């Protein structure tokens, strides 16, 4: 088992060659994934056309189940987007350089999951042709959206996050796009010429680039946290038992990072296989990602316990009754499945054998995300089935229309992602080179001394000699 994050002896020309090759000849599995994605998407398109023409009835939505899988899946996708930002922005700022080979696809995942999530509010509203009324545009009638509504905050938060993360993704790609430009022919050459914005790689460009990138990273971190807090206020701002929970914003953010990290593991394994990236997406990096996932899983579990116990020891009898009905009511099997997949299964990650067995990890990462999807469903639906007014207690099972659209959203995301990794390098070439450069020099003691010493630092080999110079 290699212990180094990346092979430091790899030649820079080799990096270019390996990554550029990924955009031309992937393994067969890639095309299988494309076909599966398109098929899933077609199911959803069919279901949506039917729903558009007939109304929300065939989805089995009813009174009082006005929201169901659409909103649950919306939160799921929004949540998944957060780990891209965690990996690309937070780990960038704390200078964890092991993120470098894998942040590009994680950031792309952020953008595309947001594009998937953004579809769900549109799919779910009754008159989707009037969706734009949620936006504050100037109209002759002087009508504005209701700024008190969390749904309007959602619209702002998501469009801001989508714009910023797409920009961040694009800015981070510019040096790589210029490498592509220099090596491509035909339409690709034209595309990369436009996209690389005249990048020549001189000092001034690099300096501006670093500044912009750091600025965007600093901007994105609070934005990412606020986005899911705002999504959680869809529920926390209501008065319904099980939704009106003060801990929802951190709970949602933790759940978001959790499902995002699990998705990064899934995509890591897929890309590593499709594009033969064994040299770059190495096992130690996967190992670090898995440990991060485990830590976030424990945060999520802790926040779950807080939520349950604060309801249990509180005075809100209706919320308590709802909590009990989650434990042993009609939705209990899904609730316990969520607890098992979200809080118990991660303990399997404690075993190195599991962490280093790729097929097992692939299955586990998918199961973790199933658990997180169930979590969102268990937030939305039990409250609707059992709230204040006893006459409105009801249990509803979503129809095939809802399931098709939910499954199709995975196809839509998969298709966007697969097309992206085919036309844009999914491993950041210039950052991998940086990483190798730094590691190579760190391995050499003399150079490390020169490069990494500040005035206040002790020299690396002075540990045994005490603080004589201090």
């Amino acid at each position, binding site marked *: 088992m290699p212990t180094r994050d990346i092979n430091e002896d790899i030649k820079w020309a080799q990096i270019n060659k390996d990554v550029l090759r990924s955009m031309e000849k992937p393994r067969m599995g890639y095309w299988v994934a494309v076909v599966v994605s398109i098929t899933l998407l077609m199911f959803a398109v069919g279901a949506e056309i039917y729903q558009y023409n007939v109304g929300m009835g065939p989805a089995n939505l009813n009174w009082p189940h006005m929201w169901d899988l659409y909103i649950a899946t919306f939160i799921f996708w929004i949540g998944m987007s957060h780990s891209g930002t965690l990996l690309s922005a937070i780990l960038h700022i704390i200078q964890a350089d092991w993120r470098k080979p894998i942040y590009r696809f994680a950031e792309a995942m952020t953008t595309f999951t947001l594009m998937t999530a953004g579809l769900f509010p549109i799919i779910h*509203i009754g008159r989707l042709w009037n969706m734009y009324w*949620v936006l504050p545009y100037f109209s002759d009638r002087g009508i504005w959206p209701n700024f008190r509504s969390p749904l309007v905050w959602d619209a702002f938060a998501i469009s801001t996050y989508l714009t910023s993360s797409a920009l961040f993704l694009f800015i981070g790609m510019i040096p790589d796009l210029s490498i592509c430009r220099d090596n491509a022919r035909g339409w690709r050459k034209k595309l990369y010429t436009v996209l690389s914005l005249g990048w020549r790689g001189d000092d001034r460009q690099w300096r501006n680039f670093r500044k912009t990138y750091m600025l965007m990273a600093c901007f994105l971190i609070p934005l990412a946290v606020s986005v899911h807090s705002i999504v959680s206020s869809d529920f926390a701002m*209501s*008065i319904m038992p099980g939704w009106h929970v003060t801990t929802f914003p951190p709970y949602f953010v933790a759940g978001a990072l959790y499902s995002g990290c699990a998705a990064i593991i899934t995509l890591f394994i897929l890309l590593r296989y499709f594009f033969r990236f064994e040299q770059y997406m190495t096992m130690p990096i996967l190992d670090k990602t898995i440990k991060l996932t485990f830590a976030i899983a424990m945060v999520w579990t802790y926040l779950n316990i807080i939520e349950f116990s604060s309801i249990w020891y509180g005075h809100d009898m209706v919320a308590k009754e709802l909590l009990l009905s989650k434990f042993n009511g009609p939705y209990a099997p899904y609730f316990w499945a969520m607890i098992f997949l979200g809080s118990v299964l991660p303990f399997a990650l404690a075993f190195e054998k599991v962490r280093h067995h790729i097929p097992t990890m692939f299955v586990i990462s998918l199961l973790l995300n199933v658990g997180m999807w169930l979590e969102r469903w268990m937030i939305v639906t039990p409250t609707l089935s059992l709230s204040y007014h006893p006459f409105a207690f009801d249990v509803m099972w979503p129809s095939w229309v809802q399931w098709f659209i939910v499954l199709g959203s995975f196809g839509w995301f998969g298709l966007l992602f697969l097309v992206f990794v085919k036309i844009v390098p999914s491993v950041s070439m210039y950052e991998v080179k940086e990483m190798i450069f730094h590691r190579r020099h760190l391995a050499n003691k003399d150079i490390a001394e020169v490069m990494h010493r500040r005035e206040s630092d002790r020299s690396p080999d002075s540990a045994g000699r005490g603080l004589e110079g201090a």
Partner: protein
Amino acid sequence: MSLNHILNDWSKYRRGREEGGFHDYEHMWGMVIDLDKCTGCNACAVACYAENNLAVVGKERIGKGQGMHWLRLERYWDEPDLGEERVSDYQHHGASYVPMMCQQCNAATCEPVCPVAATYHTPDGLNAQVYNRCIGSRYCSNNCPYRLRYFNFYSYYEESWPSPLNLQLNPDLSVRDKGVMEKCTFCVQRIRTGKDAARREDRQVQDGDIQTACAQTCPTRAITFGDLLNLHDPASGNADSKAARLWRKHQVELGKTKQNKQTADLRGYRILEALNTDPCVMFLERVRDV
């Protein structure tokens, strides 16, 4: 609204928001429903269907919970009496009925959550629903603790009123299409007509000018509809409505989360008022001889 205005009158402004956004109500339409008089005959629900162009969705969709009954008659059985003899499967008083229509809450929870402000509070104290503005996000229904809002899951026009039944539709209000939320309006078209008639005759609206369809139809007169505003302002010169007198008699007041009554035998209560929704419908408890 200028900044100065907000700074000077902040407390007043806040208070107005809590009460639904208006300080100067023209009316405050409210109801009294005497459950002791209610026989559960469902005439009110039928009248509501006829008056408000409610779609008849059919047995199957009612079973799926997609009905459009703005006024629903809730039926509750108490604990069945399953003694030694199994005399009766049900309590010997029979079922209890609660007619539930939109409670026209003064601090309505449905209003702040609507993304497009399709539901808002009128100076009449009504919780209005603008069908044309509604985009069908259904958040209002999710945030209604009484679950009194109904959604057009299908387009019902052709199925519900096949020709010539469309000729029986009430021309005073629209027929809603799919994707729109709707709910009891306290027969706002009748309120509008009554107010217009009073204005033409250059007088105030009198108690009894305006009747909702359910109150008009109820064979036992269990439903009393009227203006509650005089409750706050007895010196307005206008005679109190019957509804306002009943509210005062039963010592139920608007704007409270808990009523303090002098005697325990006063029957008035409001449903879920502890949630601070401040509903405008008062129920009178059923009297039992147990």
